[in-house]
C-alpha cells in the first residue's frame, strides 16, 4: 500500500459514507412521510439541503468557537469512520483500522459533540446551552448500558479490537448478536438515544428549544454540520454492524446491513413522542441496563 493508495482509500471511504449517510437521512424522511400517509420529499432532498446551505451568501458567527464548532464534528466523524473496519479482510479499505480499538472509538465519539457544544455555548443563546445540558445528561444515560454491552463483548472474546471481532464472526459464520443476545438487546435499545431520535430527541426538540444547540447555526456552518452528521451516522451504524452483526465482506453488504439497522431507530422514532430529560435517563437505566447487566454477567462467568 503506497501513501497515495491509502489516501485514495481514505477519501473514497469518506465520500461513500457521506453519500450513503445523506441518502439514509433521505430514506428516513421518506419512511416517516409514508408512515404519516404523506408522499414525502425526494430521496436526494438532503443533498439539495446541504448544497443550499453551502451556497448561502451571508454567514454569521458569534466568535471563534462557533466558527470552529462544525470542525470538531467533522474531525470526529471522519476519524471515527477511519478507525472502523468497513470491508473484512481487505487491505485496500483497511484505512486506520489496525491503529485503534474500541475504547479509543468510545472516546473519539464524544470529541465532536463536546467541541460542538462549546460552539453552541458561545452563541449566547440560552436554548443552545439548555440543549447541551440535556444532551450531556442523556449521554450519561445511554453510555452506561452501551459501554456495558461492549465490555461484555470484549471480555467474552478477549479482545478490544474491532478487526478481531469482525474476523472472529466471519471465521465462525455467526453473529455476536446471537452469541451475546442480551448485550445486543441492550445496544439495540440505546440506538435511538445515540441517534437522538424520538423519544430521545430532547436535545434538538424543535418545538421546545428551537432546535437547541444548532439554533444559531446557519449557512455554511449548518451545511458542514449536516455533512459531518451524515458521515458520523454511517460510522456509528458501521460500528454496531461490526460488533454485533458480523461486519461485511463488501461495501454492498455493509450498506445493506447498516441500512436495515438504521430502520430500527427510524421506525421506533416515527411512533414516539418525546421524553423529559430525567425520564430519558431513567428509561435508559431500566431495560437497557438490565439487559446489559445480564449480558455482562453471562460474559464474565
Amino acid at each position, binding site marked *: 500500500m503506497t501513501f497515495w493508495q491509502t489516501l485514495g482509500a481514505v477519501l473514497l471511504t469518506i465520500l461513500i459514507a457521506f453519500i450513503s449517510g445523506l441518502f439514509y437521512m433521505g430514506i428516513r*424522511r421518506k419512511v416517516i412521510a409514508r408512515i404519516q*400517509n404523506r408522499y414525502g420529499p425526494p430521496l436526494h432532498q438532503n443533498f439539495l*439541503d446541504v448544497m443550499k446551505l453551502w*451556497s448561502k451568501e451571508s454567514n454569521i458567527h458569534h466568535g471563534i468557537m462557533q466558527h470552529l464548532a462544525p470542525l470538531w464534528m467533522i474531525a470526529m466523524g471522519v476519524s471515527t469512520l477511519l478507525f472502523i473496519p468497513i470491508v473484512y479482510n481487505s487491505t485496500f479499505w483497511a484505512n486506520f483500522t489496525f491503529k485503534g480499538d474500541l475504547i479509543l472509538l468510545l472516546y473519539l465519539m464524544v470529541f465532536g459533540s463536546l467541541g460542538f457544544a462549546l460552539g453552541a455555548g458561545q452563541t449566547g443563546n440560552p436554548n443552545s446551552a439548555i440543549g447541551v445540558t440535556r444532551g450531556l445528561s442523556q449521554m450519561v444515560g445511554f453510555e452506561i448500558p452501551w459501554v456495558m454491552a461492549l465490555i461484555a463483548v470484549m471480555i467474552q472474546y478477549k479482545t478490544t479490537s474491532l478487526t478481531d471481532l469482525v474476523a472472529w464472526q466471519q471465521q465462525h459464520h455467526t453473529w455476536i448478536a446471537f452469541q451475546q443476545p442480551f448485550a445486543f438487546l441492550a445496544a439495540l435499545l440505546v440506538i435511538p438515544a445515540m441517534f437522538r431520535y424520538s423519544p430521545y430527541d430532547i436535545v434538538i426538540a424543535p418545538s421546545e428549544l*428551537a*432546535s437547541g444547540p444548532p439554533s444559531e447555526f446557519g449557512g455554511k456552518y*449548518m451545511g458542514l454540520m449536516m455533512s459531518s452528521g451524515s458521515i458520523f451516522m454511517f460510522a456509528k451504524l458501521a460500528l454496531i454492524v461490526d460488533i454485533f452483526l458480523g461486519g461485511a465482506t463488501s461495501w454492498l453488504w455493509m450498506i445493506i446491513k447498516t441500512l436495515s439497522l438504521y430502520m430500527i431507530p427510524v421506525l421506533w422514532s416515527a411512533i414516539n413522542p418525546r421524553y423529559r430529560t430525567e425520564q430519558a435517563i431513567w428509561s435508559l437505566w431500566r431495560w437497557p441496563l438490565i439487559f446489559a447487566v445480564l449480558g455482562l454477567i453471562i460474559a464474565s462467568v
Partner: protein
Amino acid sequence: MNYVLNDRESAKIVEFIKNFARKNSLWVLAYGTGCGAIEIPPTMTSRYDAERFSVRGAATPRQADVLLITGYLSVKTLKRVIRSYEQMQDPKYVIGFGSCTINGGMYWDSYNTIKQLDLYIPVDVYINGCMPRPEAVLAGFAKLQELIGRGQANGWRHYKENLEWYRQNQRKLIKNWKMPDYNW
C-alpha cells in the same frame, strides 16, 4: 476540446446550480401571529404535504430561507418581523400571505395594523385571499421556486441596497426603535 468556459459562462452555470439547490430546499420560518397561521398546519402535514415540494419548517431564523408572514402585522409585531428577517441568512425570501399583507384586508382602516408589507420588508411573492387555502399556499411556493430558479427572487438584495428607504418607513411606524446595529 478547445472550447473553454469563460468567466461569465462559468459564473452562470454556478449560479444555475446554486439557484437549483435554493429553489428545491425551502426552509420556512412561519411568522404566525395572524389568523392565517391556521392554514399552515394542513399545508405542512399529511393532507397537503408541502414537504414533497421540498418545503419544510425551520426552527430559527438563522436556518430559514423563507419568511412566511401569515396575515396582518400590527405595529408591535412588525418590529419582531423586521428583526427576524434581518437575522436570516442571504439569500432570503418573503411570502406575504393573505390580503392583509397586500392592502390591510379587513383591517384596512385599523389604527395599529400595517397596510402594505412591501413598504417595510421586501416581499417576493404575495398569496392573496382571505384566507388563502393550502392549495393557494402551495401555488405560492411553486411561484417562489420558479422565481428563484430564474434568479428573479431578489428581494433581499433590494432590501440591502435600499436599506435607508426601508429604515425610514420602519422608523415612521416604530417609535421606540431599540434594535441592535447590523454591520452590513
